[in-house]
């Protein structure tokens, strides 16, 4: 089993072992930082792995917004002539704070943490974790190759029927 992604035409395959490593890194980060939630996502807004207290949070919606926010920041950096991209975004709320950090060009780490947790700890541990995730991703890119065909003709036919049922359409 694996997770497949394409970036700039190159496919990245997350093996079960590498996926477990990512989850362990997230768990370790949450234990050490006392952050309430951490999401590892790609820049297109797909959540890949997350940990912590996600009650009441629509992960996909939060990730889509975070990815949009981060992409806008990258464009701002470019327009301002920054040779290095802005590495993180920090949003301070009344009760909780949000910290977004890039992991290479294609991934993001999204951290939600309580006001009682010092920002310095989050910055330090996020940096350590993104470095470790980046090493893992570089290793994966070297090993990634052929991905299995997951969607066949039968899948497409069954999908058509499911779409008609869900959308209330009559099959022609």
């Amino acid at each position, binding site marked *: *089993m*694996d*997770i*497949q*992604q*394409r970036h700039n*035409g190159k496919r990245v395959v997350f093996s*079960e072992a590498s*996926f477990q490593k990512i989850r362990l890194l997230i768990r370790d980060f949450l234990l050490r930082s006392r952050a309430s939630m951490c999401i590892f996502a*790609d*820049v*297109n*807004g*797909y959540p*890949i792995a997350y940990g912590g207290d996600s009650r009441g949070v*629509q992960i*996909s*919606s939060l990730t*889509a*917004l975070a990815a*949009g926010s981060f*992409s*806008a920041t990258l*464009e701002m950096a470019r327009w301002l002539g920054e040779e290095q991209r802005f590495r993180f975004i920090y949003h301070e709320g009344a009760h909780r704070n949000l910290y977004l950090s890039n992991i290479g060009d294609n991934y993001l780490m999204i951290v939600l943490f309580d006001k009682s947790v010092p920002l310095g700890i989050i910055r330090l541990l996020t940096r350590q974790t993104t470095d470790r995730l980046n090493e893992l991703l570089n290793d994966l890119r070297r090993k990634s190759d052929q*991905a299995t*065909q*997951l*969607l*066949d*003709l*039968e*899948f*497409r036919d*069954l*999908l*058509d029927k*499911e*779409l*008609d049922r*869900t*959308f*209330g*359409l009559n099959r022609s």
Partner: protein
Amino acid sequence: MHVDAFKREVIFKIVYFGPGLSGKTTNLEVIYKNLDPQIRSDLISLKTSEERTLYFDFLEMELGRIKGRKPRFHLYTIPGQPQYGWSRQIVLRGADAVVFVADSQPMRMDDNLTSLMDLEIKLIRLRKTLARFPWVMQYNKRDLPQAESIEVLERKLNFLHTPFYEAVATKGIGVFETLKCAIQMAVQKATL
């Protein structure tokens, strides 16, 4: 496309493109209102104070398991106003299919063409092109008395002969047919 074999999910990104005020957000609002809340997220809209799309609208929907896999769809709109070109570029990244929402009124024809060319330019930046990219044309506002004929719209806009649908998005007409076609094209492209 994003495949998560652990949760056995396949996620597709569908982007609604088109000139300002052509009805992109209305498409998503209709989908949001008509789908069972159990299978869709909240509709997120990043709007200006004038209720125009500032960055994007976002809606996630999912279907039941098919051959053990759960298809999910991330639906985005782009801001149609000319000054938000870079926002459009960002939202378009990673799209598996596009719905181009055209305004059927003759006076909007230049806007439709400009937006279509803008889409092509942005696809080229992503090393893609309309001629080989899954996209659906939706002729919206078909209920307006001054709406242009389909023959004229097809001749002026659909020079690549992509599938098209007539719609009155404010009444929900043609919205789901268009989305179904976009999904089919995205999945077809993924299986090639």
